[in-house]
């Protein structure tokens, strides 16, 4: 039977490696870096860039998981508290029981996984909106962290975890290991969401969870898994944050969730679900980190960082909405 030409509309090949939004982001980032390297002598130096990457790493790592969560139409604001729990547990074990690097990572991941699993179960089975569930666990986990802190911060942590820290031992070929870890994790998640059937299901769930369920997608299972994975990533971020050692304050992690969500949204992932990639998130995290570094280097009040982030979020969402509208007019 001869093929019947359907329409003469130009075809767009799906799932390109880089979508429109990421290119724009890359451009913005490049321009920003360019401008900064001219206005501030110290910007394009090894140490500044390394510090930037170390600062960005935990946000990017958690952001990888948060991207998957937001693609399914959910959200997780408890990551800041969860990271505190993981950090205080691992910090104390490293200091008091002489835990080595690899076991420390294992413990951190396990703690994060349990916390993430609780979120996932409540969202998937309790049928409660994720914002409410994770608002609640934000408080519960913070309380848990305080209990484990026992009223005082954790000091004198040895440099066992320096391999993932910000100092000299934590670099390979000059690039902080923490950042490399973030890139590797992002690559894995990118591959998962692009090439694995269950990864593709996440987009279906974000589009229409009900229809997805009817067509054989294991919605509950997928939902639990994205929160679980994010918990694991929180554990890894905790290890990175402990890094070179030193002290862990009781309010550690406060506000992390906002930075992560900002990175994800700026990176082009739609809060309505069904669309987004981790590449955008990593770029978003870099953008957020760059803004923060820029503000410091330019000698501006550090509070301005938040202002810029707010503006960037709105611009990113605005661009996203415009693209949506233009597409609907097809």
């Amino acid at each position, binding site marked *: 039977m001869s093929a019947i030409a359907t329409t003469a509309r130009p075809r767009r090949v799906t799932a390109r490696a880089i979508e429109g939004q990421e290119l724009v982001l890359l451009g913005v980032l490049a321009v920003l870096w360019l401008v900064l390297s001219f206005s501030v002598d110290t910007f394009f130096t090894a140490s500044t860039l390394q510090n930037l990457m170390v600062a960005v790493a935990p946000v990017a790592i958690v952001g990888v998981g948060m991207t998957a969560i937001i693609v399914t139409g959910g959200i997780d604001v408890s990551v800041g508290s969860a990271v505190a729990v993981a950090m205080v547990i691992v910090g104390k074990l490293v200091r008091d029981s002489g835990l080595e690097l690899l076991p420390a990572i294992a413990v951190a991941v396990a703690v994060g996984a349990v916390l993430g699993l609780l979120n996932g179960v409540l969202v998937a089975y309790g*049928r*409660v909106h994720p914002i409410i569930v994770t608002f609640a666990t934000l408080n519960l986990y913070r*309380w848990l962290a305080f209990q484990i802190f026992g009223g005082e911060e954790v000091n004198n942590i040895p440099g066992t975890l320096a391999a993932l820290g910000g100092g000299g031992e934590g670099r390979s070929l000059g690039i902080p290991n923490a950042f490399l870890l973030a890139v590797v994790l992002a690559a894995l998640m990118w591959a998962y969401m692009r090439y694995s059937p269950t990864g593709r299901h996440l987009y279906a769930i974000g589009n229409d969870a009900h229809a997805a369920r009817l067509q054989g997608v294991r919605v509950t299972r997928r939902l639990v898994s994205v929160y679980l994975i994010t918990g694991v990533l929180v554990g890894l971020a905790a290890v990175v944050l402990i890094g070179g050692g030193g002290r862990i304050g009781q309010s550690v992690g406060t506000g992390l969730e906002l930075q992560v969500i900002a990175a994800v949204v700026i990176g082009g992932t739609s809060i309505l679900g069904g669309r987004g990639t981790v590449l955008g998130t990593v770029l978003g995290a870099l953008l957020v980190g760059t803004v923060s570094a820029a503000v410091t280097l330019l000698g501006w009040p550090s509070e301005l960082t938040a*202002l810029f*982030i*707010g503006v960037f979020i*709105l611009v990113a969402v605005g661009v996203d909405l415009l693209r949506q509208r233009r597409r609907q007019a097809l």
Partner: protein
Amino acid sequence: MTTDTQAPETQAPARAGRPSIGSLLRSVLEDRVALLIILLVVMLAWFFALSSGGYLVAPYDLSYLASALESMVPLAILGLAQLLVIVSGRGGIDLSVGAMVSLVGMLFGFAYGMWEWPFLPALLLALAAGVVLGAVNGLLVAYLRVPALIATLATYYAYSSLALISNDNAPISTRPLQDLNSITRAVDLGGVAIPRQVFTFLLPVAVLIWLLVNRAPYGRRLYAVGTNEVAARYASLDVAWVRFGAYTLSGLLSAVVAVVTAAQFASARPDAGTVGNGMALPAITIAVLGGVAIAGGVGRVGGVLIAALLIVWLNAGILLYFEGAQGSQYQLFALGAVLLVSALFNALVLRRRGGT
């Protein structure tokens, strides 16, 4: 689907004539206000028992409860603000209320505390500022259709940073502000000292909001928009305007809280509404506990007020039960647990009522 899929539905089965314990229980569970009152009474009884048994650090009595009302005022008002935006539907929420409190507080601090404006003009300035800040949210959410979570997250960032920059991260504690504290001093009612702002701020605001929601045409429109946005459009309601109004009112109410908080602490602090986890979280908790449905269209003023009382008095009791810093930590636990349980409960009730 073929067009005849709208099959005529049967009527809901009539309830059995004789009221039974089961149906009584069910109707209590479904009337959020009644349920909250019962919980409140139970909790109070529990703490009174602990107090008389000597388990508490200090007596849990009427004076203590009255003094605790001080923290109830800002939270209840912000809870009402969340009621309005969440009821308006389409994922409505306002994460920026705490930031608005901080920013308007600083503005008020400048006007009243530094530029020596008289109280009334300074108050009006603060309210106007709240309207403007809320209107920005309203513009983003209602007209530009930005999801509320993101829009108010962005304004949270913007407003909180502006508040911090405004006075170089320093509070304003000049004389006029310190004197302003007098409007929050206690009023003696039959031997119990009740903070003045309960009567001067909370009561009027609560009454006005109740009237707005239950008696004014706007309130009807708000609930209609939150229940079914499309049907509201077909019923010739200006959906965008109604939503815009909800967010603007939220800004206005945040401004009221800003002034009260400045008076309460005798200074305008740049992190007044954003310190710790901020004021937005407890406000949302109170709204959800008070029976406001996240999907929109459902929520009662009475529920929010009683939920606020519940949370505040629960926190007060916890402070007495645990020693030192532990108390404030357990308050976190209580907040989280209460939010979770009430949300799970909301979901259950909604499912039984036949909602999706």
